């Protein structure tokens, strides 16, 4: 046999031996928990270049950190402060990571996963926990009594949470609007009927009442009476075509602040009151009927009347409840 093939056979034999021996043994004996994990590989020696880079990063970080303090004391500017502090942190971090990967000794260590599930111990625990039951005559009854007492105590501890707020029923259905309450604008000035020209929209509030409750704010527009398409009762609440709606969307409570008013009706979309949150679209000519969007109810209308001084007043409360629906009783 020549040198080549003989060596090859030798190697194969050695490999076979190694395989046979190796198969019986498990992979590098994982250490028990008390011993430090095996280091499988260890590479020592930092490249000079990596050390240099780390030094440069740290130096730059130092400058940046000084910059931060100087700027803070001298003339704090958000951008400079952020740049300096951020840069300092990033540079030190980069130096640390670089050191971890290229400067300090690189090691691959091996540890051990625990195996969970010890049946014997589980049984022991079960036995220990059940011990108190030994010799107790009416165990079941005692357990039930204890459980009942505990459960009612738990419920009692939770009950004071109800003090956090009032019941909904008596609050949500009331608004500040009554017959005769005057409409005022955002500067508390009464609103003249003639100020509500066709094509404009006016935000209105009850005279003398806080304006941030959901029932307070209104959107008032004027529709040519010939275009109104509503019941007689509602039409009576829209004198001269001036119609008022709750400004609070009955979907999720945003302010309905979009009035889509066509300058040239034949070529433009129809008039609509639209909410900018989820685009519920209501028709002001048809008592706030929903035209598009997710709202489950129409926009509530407030009946108006014009008083002797040609100012706008409420002629009563809203025809329908205002604000978002709630999971509970709601008159419709």
């Amino acid at each position: 046999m020549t040198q080549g093939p003989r060596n090859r056979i030798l190697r194969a034999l050695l490999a076979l031996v190694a395989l046979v021996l190796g198969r019986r043994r498990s992979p590098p004996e994982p250490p028990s928990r008390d011993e430090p994990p095996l280091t499988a590989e260890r590479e020592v020696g930092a490249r000079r270049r990596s050390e240099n880079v780390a030094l440069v990063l740290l130096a730059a970080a130092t400058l940046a950190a000084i910059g931060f303090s100087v700027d803070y004391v001298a003339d704090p500017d958000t951008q400079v402060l952020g740049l300096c502090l951020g840069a300092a942190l990033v540079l030190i971090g980069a130096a640390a990571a670089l050191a971890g990967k290229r400067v300090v000794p690189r090691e691959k260590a091996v540890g051990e996963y625990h195996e969970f599930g010890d049946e014997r111990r589980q049984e022991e625990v079960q036995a220990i926990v059940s011990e108190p039951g030994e010799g107790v005559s009416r165990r079941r009854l005692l357990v039930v009594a204890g459980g009942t007492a505990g459960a009612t105590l738990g419920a009692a501890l939770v009950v004071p949470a109800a003090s956090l707020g009032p019941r909904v029923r008596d609050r949500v259905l009331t608004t500040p609007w009554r017959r005769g309450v005057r409409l005022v604008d955002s500067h508390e000035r009464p609103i003249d009927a003639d100020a509500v020209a066709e094509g404009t929209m006016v935000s209105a509030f009850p005279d003398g009442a806080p304006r941030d409750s959901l029932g307070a704010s209104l959107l008032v527009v004027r529709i040519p009476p010939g275009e109104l398409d509503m019941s007689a009762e509602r039409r009576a609440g829209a004198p001269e075509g001036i119609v008022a709606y709750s400004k609070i969307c009955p979907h999720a409570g945003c302010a309905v602040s979009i009035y889509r008013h066509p300058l040239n009706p034949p070529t433009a979309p129809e008039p609509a009151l639209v909410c900018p949150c989820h685009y519920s679209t209501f028709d002001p000519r048809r008592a706030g009927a929903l035209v598009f969007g997710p709202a489950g109810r129409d926009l509530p209308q407030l009946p108006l009347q014009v008083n002797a001084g040609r100012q706008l007043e409420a002629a009563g409360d809203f025809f329908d409840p205002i604000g978002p629906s709630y999971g509970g009783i709601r008159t419709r």
Partner: protein
Amino acid sequence: MRRLPRPLQIVVALVLSTAALLSLGGGAPAQRASGTALERQGRQLFVEGCSDCHGMDAGGVAGRGPSLRGVGELSADFYLRTGRMPLAAPEDEPERTESPYSRREIHALVAYVGSFGGPGIPRVDAESGDLAEGFELFSEHCMGCHQVVGRGGITTRGIAPDLQSARPVDVAEALQIGPYVMPRFRDLAPSEVDSLARYVVSTRDPVARGGWGIGNVGPIPEGMVAWLLAGVALLLVIRLIGERTSR
């Protein structure tokens, strides 16, 4: 007219012509220096470019364009100068574009339309407006459509344009007209209009104390920065720090 006795005919004629003369007034005279020559030029341009929808004598065409009699120089100036008119098709939504007309041509068209009467081009002084008042007015009347810093918005079936190109006079004119689906706000005092104009102009460059404004429209670009800038950067960082699969 012929049935009336002669003296009465004269009286009626006088009354009518006086009324006609009076109706021609009512606007800032500044742009009307050239008088009828300009109007004639305007009429010619009008017939060529506008009469299809607005009628040969600006009386409107049913189902297409409205009558322009009485809209005044104000409306014509707004629509023509911002390129919203001419419109390709009547149902199109007018939007700000580069006008196909030169300034002189616009001048002429405006004069022509203005000759039918109506408000003149308004005077606005944005510098003298009060910024805080403008912000309050804008919040109450405008931001529902145009977004709080004038970046524009939508309504179902309509766009409220961004206001970065709006000049003070555009603001004043639009408030009077209520173009396309915008409501009109004619009751504002001149000082309020000045304040609104001042605020609108300020939205071109909102106070950005925090750095790069990323469009000043809020959480959408912010989220994009969080994912596409910070997220990508951090993924890169951990990719460099961590190891890769050995397989």
